[in-house]
């Protein structure tokens, strides 16, 4: 067969085959992977530049608005937004709110706080701390219930975001009920519950546990 085909033809075939293998290797194992890698790097760099540019523009705008922001920030600080959600303080506050709002009773449960780290918050060296809080309320009047909710929102440290609430009239007012109230017997006419999220921002260095994990077991009273 070699004699029929000839050494020149075989040599030419071998050279062409070798050239093809070399070219295919260069295309599919060198250039294309490198190009894909470069494309990924390029897209990442473009996104980073775009994000940074937006950041710079925003910072320039912030510079103009910094005085106004500073005032709001000070209010946030004073409201305890940078606190560590002290459960003992919360207990005292809820007792105080119960007294102020004149609700007959409030049973609360503060769940374990979850920590999350987000872009801008992380850049400022902080993490977000959020605890679910649930309160069951017994009251004589619905106004007391609303008062309790109002003071929870206003006086609790950090941000209190009400997620849901409900109230229900338990019994109608008749002579017996009026007599009972008149005699100073605590009479529950309204009952309800409030679920809210208690959120603050704390310095990252003050966090010892892994992010996303609860801080401590839930407390209840």
């Amino acid at each position, binding site marked *: 067969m070699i004699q029929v085909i000839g050494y020149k033809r075989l040599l030419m075939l071998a050279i062409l085959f070798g050239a093809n293998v070399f*070219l295919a290797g260069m295309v599919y194992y060198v250039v294309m992977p490198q*190009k894909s890698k470069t494309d990924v790097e390029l897209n990442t760099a473009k996104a980073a530049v775009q994000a940074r540019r937006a950041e710079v523009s*925003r910072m320039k705008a912030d510079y103009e608005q910094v005085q106004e922001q500073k005032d709001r920030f000070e209010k946030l600080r004073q409201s305890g937004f940078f606190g560590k959600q002290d459960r003992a303080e919360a207990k005292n506050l809820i007792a105080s709110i119960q007294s102020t709002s004149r609700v007959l009773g409030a049973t609360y449960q503060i769940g374990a706080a979850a920590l999350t780290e987000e872009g801008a918050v992380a850049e400022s060296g902080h993490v*977000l701390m959020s605890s679910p809080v649930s309160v069951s309320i017994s009251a004589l009047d619905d106004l007391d219930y609303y008062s309790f909710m*109002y003071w929870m929102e206003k006086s609790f440290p950090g941000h209190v975001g009400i997620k849901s609430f409900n109230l229900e009239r338990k019994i109608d007012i008749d002579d017996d009920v009026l007599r009972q109230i008149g005699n100073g017997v605590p009479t529950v006419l309204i009952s309800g519950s409030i679920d809210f999220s208690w959120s603050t*921002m704390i310095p990252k260095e003050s966090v010892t546990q892994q992010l996303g994990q609860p801080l401590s077991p839930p407390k209840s009273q």
Partner: protein
Amino acid sequence: MSVLPFLSSARCILIIGDESLYIYETGGNSTRLIDTIPWTTRDFEGTVSDTIRRECRGKSVLVMNDMTDQHFKGGQRIPKVQPLDRANVIARRLNMAFPNYPIRGALQIRDRAGKAATAANAAGGLYLFAAVPMSEPVSKTLAALKLSMSSITGFVLLPVEASDMVRALADKVMKQERTNSRWAVFMGQHLNGSLRQVITRDGQLAMTRMTPISDLDGDSTAWVNDVAQEFKATLSYLTRFGYSSDDGMEVFAIATPSAGEDLQAQIGSECNFHHYTASEAANILGIRLGLQDDQYHADALHAAWAGKKKKFILPMDAVDVKRIHAPRKAATIAAALLFCSGLYLTWMLMSQTGAWVSARGELDAQRKDQTEVEAQYDAEVKRLEALGFDVRLIRSSLDSFKRFDAESLHPMALIQDIGKAVGADLRLDRLSVAAEPVKPAVDSAGRPLPNANPNEVKAGTFTATLTFSFPYTIEPEEGIRQVNQLQQRLVSELPSTYAVEVVKQVADLSYTDSTVGAVGSPGVAPSVNTTAENTEDYKAEITIKGPLL
């Protein structure tokens, strides 16, 4: 070396004559006789292969048999078989017809319109069988080809491949002279001195003759007499094939002008006679011979005609030729494919490399931009830090607080508006409000979509459910009226973005409640209160939906 030599129009033509092998080279504008090598030459194969290698470098070789010893059997009828079996049947019939001749071929006979002969259509068709013995000249030529390492276009018979040339000449002449002849005779003297006659009927090879005559180089009178005599002999043969003078006959002779005139004087009365020099005939056929030593030999014309063909009339099937041709053709095709693949890969490599280099350049530019933007960012941070505040902390805390607000209920205003609308007369039994957070956008597969603007705060929605009760003594129509009025008041008190809907009306007795009632008896005064009565309060339910912010 040409990439696809067997497809190239430049060829090396080997004409196997009775005394010698004639080596021609055909190209774009010329046909050149390279050498004439007698069979008796010492080391014939080496000489021929050297000549081919030296003179026809890289060109494909076409072998044309012009020997006297060619065998034809016309009118061979093939039984009707499936198309896939036809080749095997023809091969068997060829083997039976020429058992001792290894080089064989079959040509289907067609009518004047170019269709398979109608008379034989009912069966498998009529065929012309041809065969060539493996004579010493043929085997020597094939051995030389094997040595030369050239690719082989094919092995053909000169008179068969010349038949379409004769038809082309006849068609052109008949068109010019408005004649219509069924027969055409082409006469041309070859270098070996013999006169080759190719006779066609309706454009198909009908007969061929090869006879020795005197050379035109010497006495033209003798040449004219010899040719005229051979032509007359041919006519007598043709009469046996059914030739009649009414059919018309075009006769072409390759000769010098004076010899052609003399020949016309002798045989012109019996036919439409035309005489040309080899170059004149080539011009009529649209091919170019270039400079030739003489103009009265027809070999160069045959070589030029066969050299320009892409497809042959009757390629002969020869095991020895195949044994050389098939591997070389396969190698050539493989080389061509590899060459094309190499071109494609080269293009790919260049385009991908170009794109890569371009991306690298763009990446460098982006990195430069990134450095500049980072410097701007650091400068802005320093500028803001110089103010004495941690601006990132200020901004992130304010943003976080804003986002928490957008995800929470702000119930005081809502409660106030509901209180105004309800008033003192209606009895609100139950109020329930729940926030619904914003659902993240997802694609069709349920994967979360990236937020186009991460700083944008999207507010969720809430649903408030108000449950009222009415005393059972109230007329349902009155209860419905009061609920409808309450809905109207809620709509007017609440922001326009809120939706207020009565989901349960007073008289809408739901199947979830127990229902008690009675109807009066004839003769008894109807009394609603004394027979049976519904002592359950009526219930109504209204929902309010709206955005959290």
